[in-house]
């Protein structure tokens, strides 16, 4: 560290002092912004813990009086909400596992293997990322209907099972950054491709697999339109569809509605704070080149 002369030190100190108002303003703006971005969660949680009559008698920010879990009990006991949680978990688990396995395999082929048509096929994958869901929705519905999979796990899961172009793209970006030397060395030892994937690539790819897994699980958890058109009975209904139906029954019973929404949003909030590093990584990998 360079030794500063007395005048330099004074001017540095003065500069710091001059910047203090700026820092204060910065923190104030940031805190207000942060509040804006999370207040709906706080409000939903607060409302979900209030008795019904308090909703219409005092300010939305008033504390619950008395504090009650009754709304959650009501929501969970009625409307097959517990079942819906279970169905959503099955849906998310299968789609996530499928996405990880099939995207990894395809991404490895794109990143490391040479075969005719590779670039064309990869380009095709990228192009299909731009096909809006709604475009394929009608034919998919007809297809699933003809297969007899309407209102079943098969119809829910199978069309989403084989990996998305996004997942493949994300994994490929990561694989390209792994040095090929390790694989080459393993090949010299006589390892085959599956062994190389299992023993070299997968251990190195844990972070990106975590990222892809979380993103897929969250997207599936949040998915609404496909389950909405493909399921109707309480045997396979997922949470998003249940809450849509719940809304039309209990419109404006905000204490119940907020308990129901927080059952969906709460787990995501926890997941987000636990895995934020993995989640932010997807942004760094998918934005560039």
């Amino acid at each position, binding site marked *: 560290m360079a030794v500063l002369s007395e005048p330099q030190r004074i001017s540095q100190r003065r500069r710091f002092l001059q910047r203090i108002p700026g820092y204060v303003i910065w923190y104030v703006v940031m805190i207000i912004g942060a509040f804006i971005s999370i207040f709906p969660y706080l409000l939903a949680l607060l409302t979900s813990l209030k008795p019904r009559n308090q909703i219409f008698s005092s300010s939305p920010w008033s504390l619950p009086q008395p504090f009650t879990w009754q709304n959650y009990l009501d929501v969970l006991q009625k409307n097959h909400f517990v079942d819906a949680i279970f169905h959503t978990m099955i849906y998310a688990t299968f789609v996530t596992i499928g996405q990880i396995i099939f995207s990894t395999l395809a991404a490895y082929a794109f990143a490391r293997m040479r075969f005719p048509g590779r670039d064309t096929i990869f380009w095709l994958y990228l192009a299909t990322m731009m096909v809006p869901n*709604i475009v*394929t929705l009608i034919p998919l519905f007809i297809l699933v209907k003809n297969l007899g999979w309407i209102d079943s796990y098969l119809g829910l899961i199978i069309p989403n099972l084989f990996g998305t172009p996004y997942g493949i793209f994300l994994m490929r970006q990561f694989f390209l950054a792994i040095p090929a030397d390790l694989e080459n060395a393993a090949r010299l030892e006589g390892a085959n491709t599956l062994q190389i994937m299992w023993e070299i690539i997968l251990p190195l790819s844990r972070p990106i697999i975590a990222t892809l897994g979380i993103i897929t699980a969250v997207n599936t958890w949040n998915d609404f339109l496909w389950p909405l058109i493909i399921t109707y009975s309480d045997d396979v209904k997922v949470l998003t569809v249940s809450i*849509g139906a719940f809304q039309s029954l209990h419109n404006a019973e905000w204490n119940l509605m907020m308990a129901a929404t927080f059952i969906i949003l709460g787990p995501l909030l926890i997941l987000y704070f636990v895995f934020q590093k993995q989640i932010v990584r997807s942004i760094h990998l998918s934005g560039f080149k």
Partner: protein
Amino acid sequence: MRSQQTNRSFTKSKRNPLDGSPQDGGVSHLSIHRRLSRLLKRETWEAYLFLSPSLIGLLVFTLLPVAAVAVLSFYDWGLISDPHFIGLQNYTKILQNPVVSHSLIVTCWFMVLNIPLQLILAMALAMLLNRKLPGVGLFRVLYAVPWMATPIALGIVWQWIFDPSYGALNNFLAIFGIHNIQWLSSQQLALPSIAGVTIWQSVGYSMLFLLAGLQGIPEYLYESAEIDGASPISTFFTITLPLLNPTLFFVLVTEVINSFQIFDIVYAMTKGGPGDSTNVFTFYIYRQAFEFFHTGYAAALSMVLFLILIVVTLAQALYFRKRIVYDIS
């Protein structure tokens, strides 16, 4: 990449001669060539094996449906009756139907309300958060929280916030003497309210992208600009903005595509109303297909949406290709 692959096969034939066909020692050009081509064949075979599940998925669940929707758009079909070919009639119906053009206008208006403001806010936030102060990491995390939230649930939470009599927003505005604004039941305010929720949900996500882009701009550019006495504003327009162009392009394309597809929040908050004021295009298609079962007509509508998105994406790509001239690698 390619040279590495070739290299690998050469080393293999030199160092591991027993691995190949019995008569060859990996010396003659001919045998190396033959071995190489066999290796490549094996690699091709393996690659397609690895690709096959996702390729089958892509064919059956994306490409085939895209083709099917194109074919369906020339048919009159109500799912129950037998489909019959009607040529371009669905499309002429679309062109003549004022509800369609209204719905397209609503969608475009939604984008005008949503995208520019969101990009500006995201840019401002990214620049504010691109510094080393205590707590900056926490703010980055907090700002992106809404991005992962379930849209259908969010829509319901915001419905509560927008509630005219008991909601948090009107309750807050009452401090300033503003009362009883009908956010979601007024034809003028419903769409801006939905755009506001969309901005609230995606601004943190866009910010993270832009922040990653900002962090990729080398420090020395700013240092030399400072030495040259450039003002912060001119630094922003001559360094930050041009170098951020690819990131901005990416965020813009993503936002346009997402905006065209907005559905869940509309479904939760307004169901297209009041009147037709939030009847965005996706919602209109959904209704035609799955409430009224005008399957052929809805397929034609999907094709229209698809074509619009292709044109928009290409136009954006061309526009930005002209402008992305800086390469600092």
